[in-house]
């Protein structure tokens, strides 16, 4: 299975451009902006009711990050990952791609990279805005910035890994969204709380292992996220996420190259 980097790059440009214009992107852009709205409301409340006990930085590192990690990246990865293959089939546009001198694996990788890139940008924009709003008094605090950047890295890793998984699911399953919903909000949200090594069968386990509260093992600001978490070492967690992403993508390319797709009339 060979392919040229040019083909991947061309497909990337094609769908980075097209993905941003898609209607669903506008909807998800609004959803990703919800934490910004919440941050704004909290900050306005703090301005008008000083001493109300609401800690902006704490809200950022718990509620905002939790929303992104536990909900937003899962939903984005699900809807964009599965659509890499399914939207071409449903729209009957696959013909335009598969009759070009581009390897099928280049189509998957280019489209995956395009969607992952603009989703990471979308999430990053929302996270940075929320951070700026809620940490307005601590903007010179380097540790706060570092924590935010680390959080962003975890979100990006999570988004890439989940998206690779859903890309694979989308290449062979017709009802991939339904399966993805069960996986995201069933398996991932339940099994991560199982004690022992069972929780290591979830992607979320490795993501949470990278969060500061988990790695210190203290009941910190993210303690509610890391309930019963028995974290893996950071290096293992990163390596596992990278390997899983590569394996899911490799399998997606393989399935997409071998499988025959027939449009439904």
């Amino acid at each position, binding site marked *: 299975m060979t392919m040229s980097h040019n083909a991947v790059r061309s497909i990337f440009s094609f769908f980075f451009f097209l993905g941003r*214009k898609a209607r669903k992107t506008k909807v998800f852009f609004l959803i990703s902006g919800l934490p910004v709205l919440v941050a704004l409301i909290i900050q306005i409340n703090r301005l008008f009711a000083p001493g109300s006990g609401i800690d902006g930085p704490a809200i950022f590192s718990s509620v905002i990050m939790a929303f992104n990690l536990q909900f937003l990246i899962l939903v984005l990865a699900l809807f964009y990952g599965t659509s890499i293959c399914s939207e071409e089939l449903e729209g009957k546009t696959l*013909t335009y791609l*598969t*009759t070009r001198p581009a390897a099928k694996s280049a189509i998957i990788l280019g489209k995956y990279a395009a969607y992952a890139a603009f989703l990471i940008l979308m999430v990053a924009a929302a996270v940075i805005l929320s951070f700026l709003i809620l940490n307005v008094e601590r903007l010179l605090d380097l540790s706060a910035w570092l924590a935010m950047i680390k959080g962003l890295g975890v979100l990006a890793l999570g988004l890439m890994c989940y998206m690779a998984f859903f890309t694979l699911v989308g290449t062979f399953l017709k009802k991939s969204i339904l399966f993805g919903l069960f996986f995201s909000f069933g398996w991932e949200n339940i099994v991560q709380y199982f004690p022992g090594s069972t929780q290591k069968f979830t992607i979320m386990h490795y993501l949470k292992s990278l969060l500061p509260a988990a790695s210190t093992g203290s009941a910190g600001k993210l303690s509610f996220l890391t309930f019963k978490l028995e974290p893996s070492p950071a290096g293992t967690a990163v390596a596992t996420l990278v390997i899983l992403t590569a394996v899911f993508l490799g399998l997606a390319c393989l399935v997409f*190259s071998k499988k025959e797709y*027939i449009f439904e009339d």
Partner: protein
Amino acid sequence: MTAVIQTKNLSKWYGNVLGLSDVSLEVEQGVTGLLGPNGAGKSTFLKLITGQIKPSIGHVAIQGQDVWNNYPLFGRIGFCPEQDAFYDEMTGWEFMTSLLSLYSFSRADVQSRAEKALDFVELDKDKDRLIRGYSRGMRQRLKLAQAVAHDPEIIILDEPLNGLDPLSKRKVIRLIKDYKEAGKTVIVSSHVLPEIEALTRTIILLHQGKILARGDIHYIRDLIDKHPHMISVKCSDPRRLASSLVGEPSVLNIQFGPGPDTVVFETQDRDKFFGLIPRLIVDHRIDVEEITSPDDNLQAVFDYLVGK
């Protein structure tokens, strides 16, 4: 002449449904018309030779190479699909340049090819509009533009004249003939016989997934001409028109209806019949509203050929 496209025992099933059955043929340079009623297997055949689907049995090769997953080969092929499907959020220009960028052309070449193709299909003025807002004819022309913009050696067009106005049809027919003169290989599918007749003499007739006939179009035309034709005339005085044709040897049968102003003639010599009609209409001062051939369609011809 060397065969450009070769198929051997090519068969395709969709589950239990037969799409194509045991098709062995060779397509040479020039224009080949793929003719058949809807559901005959034309699109299945074209999808197989463009590597979009895998044969269930048999083999398909282009220029001696296997087609399935042979993507470098696709640089030599241009395909215009039948389905009216696009990336609707794109403009015509974005669509063309995005697809052309999948070839190894320089940026300047991509732009000049896109411009040339859009200009040819007369979409240059609408190139910055969203495809979503294009009419059916414009979308059809855009599909054609993306199939030829990279100047392929082999052009495969699935019902390319659908939805085109007569002027655009003529232009596309001219383009296809130009490709033939340039030594390219073109396969055009259609369920409309006159469309194929305007393009080529070399035809493949498909029916129920099988090749019914292949060769010169005159062969099928002769078969059609032997086929008794029904010609319906809607006019001011159908009985008078009928009485004037009663003794005519080329008229086999005359029936009135379905309406009070309609008469249906059955003839075995359509050309002679159409030669007589204008004179009779003028002589008898009959106002004619409509002349149609209820069975002058490909399905009727196929039914006749297969003895239904």
